[in-house]
């Protein structure tokens, strides 16, 4: 068996839509109208982009003021090729830009050809996107401008005020399950279920995670387990789950203890009416056809009754527990 650790692409996505509140909402509504909004702080200075509170003393802020669309670069760095999620379609500089009429700088992009075109103190002006929705990327970026340009405000029709904003997150990983789960997944392809043994107590855990929680030690021995066991506990689901359209309620999920294992693991009970499922019922794995086997726990389609006599449960209070073993 190969010891090489498995890897697989993993993508986490969070399709967040955030509510804005009145102050951030006013700023984002301003973006839709191609205007820039700040808020006056307790000391009279203007914070842009605005917050509902003063970061210095936490006092409520509510006096919105319009600020300019030109400003001064206070610091910058060169980004080079934009990464996939950065909303810019050309090389650009990151810059902190203090807008005329504001007292704090904001982060955005300056759209120039190269770092040689950037300098602290340079004057820049907003370049708006044509299709604006009330999002920080409604600003396509800033472009250099000579001196102090009289801004020609884009006077726009009233727009619907922004109350929420899309802020999706997508992060890509090359996931590795570690050494023990890699062996477990490889064995699955051969319809073999692996567990690992506690070096102190001899208890067998499945799936194997390379650790005995009883001893707090690395496990060193892998154990092949039979694909038969008994149901230690179960439930019947009667409402559909969005992420599992393949499951038609009612269906039964069970905690199956394999012969030789010290803990149960989760599976579906199939080929029997859910109402007929009992604690103590003997079950056997139903595997996918051989030509569909993968390195995946999904190879087990479910667990069906063997027809053997039930296992007698002597102590129901112990169900689901892992004891300290016989150390």
């Amino acid at each position, binding site marked *: 068996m190969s010891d090489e650790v498995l890897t697989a692409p993993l993508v986490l996505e969070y399709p967040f839509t955030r509510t804005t509140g009145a102050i951030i909402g006013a700023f984002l509504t301003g973006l839709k109208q191609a205007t820039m909004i700040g808020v006056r702080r307790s000391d009279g200075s203007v914070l842009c*982009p605005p917050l509902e509170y003063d970061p210095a003393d936490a006092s409520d802020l509510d006096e919105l003021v319009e600020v300019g669309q030109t400003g001064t670069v206070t610091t910058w760095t060169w980004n080079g090729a934009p990464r996939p999620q950065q909303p810019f379609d050309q090389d650009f500089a990151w810059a902190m830009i203090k807008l005329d009429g504001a007292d704090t700088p904001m982060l955005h992009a300056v759209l120039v050809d190269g770092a040689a075109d950037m300098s602290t103190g340079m004057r820049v002006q907003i370049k708006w996107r044509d299709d604006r929705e009330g999002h920080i990327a409604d600003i396509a970026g800033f472009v250099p401008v000579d001196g102090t340009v009289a801004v020609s405000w884009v006077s726009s029709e009233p727009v619907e005020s922004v109350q929420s904003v899309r802020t999706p997150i997508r*992060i890509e990983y090359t996931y590795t399950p570690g050494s023990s789960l890699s062996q477990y997944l490889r064995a699955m392809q051969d319809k073999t279920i692996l567990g690992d043994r506690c070096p102190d107590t001899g208890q067998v855990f499945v799936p194997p995670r390379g650790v005995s929680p009883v001893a707090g030690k690395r496990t060193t021995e892998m154990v092949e387990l039979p694909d038969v066991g008994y149901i230690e506990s179960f439930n019947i689901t009667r409402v559909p789950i969005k992420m599992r359209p393949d499951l038609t309620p009612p269906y039964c999920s069970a905690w199956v203890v394999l012969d030789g294992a010290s803990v149960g693991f989760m599976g579906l009970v199939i080929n029997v009416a859910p109402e007929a499922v009992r604690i103590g019922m003997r079950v056997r794995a139903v595997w996918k056809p051989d030509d569909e086997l993968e390195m995946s726990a999904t190879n087990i389609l479910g667990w069906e009754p063997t027809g053997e006599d039930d296992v007698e449960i002597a102590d129901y209070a112990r169900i689901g527990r892992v004891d300290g073993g016989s150390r």
Partner: protein
Amino acid sequence: MRDVAVVSVAQRQQATIAGESEVEFMIPVMQQAKEAVGLTQQDIGFTCSGSSDFLAGQAFSFVMTIDGTGPVPPISESHVEQDGAWALYEAWVKLQCGDIDTAFVYSYGKSSPGSLRDVLATQMDPYYVAPLWPDAFAIEALAARQMIESGVVTERQLAEIAHRSRMHAASNHHAVRRREKSVDEIMAEEVVMDPLRRSDLPASADGGCAVVLAAGDVARRLCERPAWIRGIDHRSDAHTLGVRDLTASMSAELAGQHAGVSRDKIDLAELHAPFTTSEHILTNALGLSDETVINPSGGALAAHTMMASGLIRIAEAARRITAGEGDRAVAHASSGPCLQQNLVCVLEGD
């Protein structure tokens, strides 16, 4: 205040730990720290850990890692989504309550499965900044340019910091970036994130750290020379970058004052400074002088393990106190963009 000390430490850091899951690689680290003082998990009063599921994309990884402590029968434990230095702070507070005498702290990070620069963009302001996906290096570079152009630091001074980190790291087998480079060689490096050069940026690592804390006579029994925590404090600056002075750190300065850094001479300081610029800011904020050896381990520049680098600073400083390499040390941990949050801990030997 109750006397509480670091009595045992262990760590592991390397560029990538591909072959092992978090719990698999943390078990030997956790065992080493406990076995060195002859404690089992069941002897320990409270356990606190620090980690973030976003790094490896492993949901509830901290729950799996608890298995590595040996939590049967159930233990008293807690977790922070923060560097382990903040887990240590929680454990220290718990020890101050007086009902337990020992605590176990660990933290770990495995950033290699993801793109850390992008993952860290998600910690920024979710309305105005995160949707632009600025990466962590870019944000630091904005601060670095301000520092250089305003005369707070010169590029050569930054290269000197990088040079010293590499020199110290050469004798630290836990460090990832250990090749010595002269100041001139560093000055000749290409700029990665203008104005930051390769040696100004942290060498990313996977790994973790474990620490045993003990109070009073128990600490004296477990360790010949405990590293007593004589002061510990943490502070946070504003989240909004635009309202902060990025060339200094008010929160580090305050935390240092409250931890009592300036009360006496500091022999050595382990500063959680992922960038050369952050080390310069912290040295100023904590008022450290030339008498203090800064980052004898090479610091976070030489090996930056997200969620563990701060706890490792405490472990490195404590290890040196216990070994008699110094009598009074500062250990510092930071979190967030441009040193937004800072924890300062003063350690002393008897």
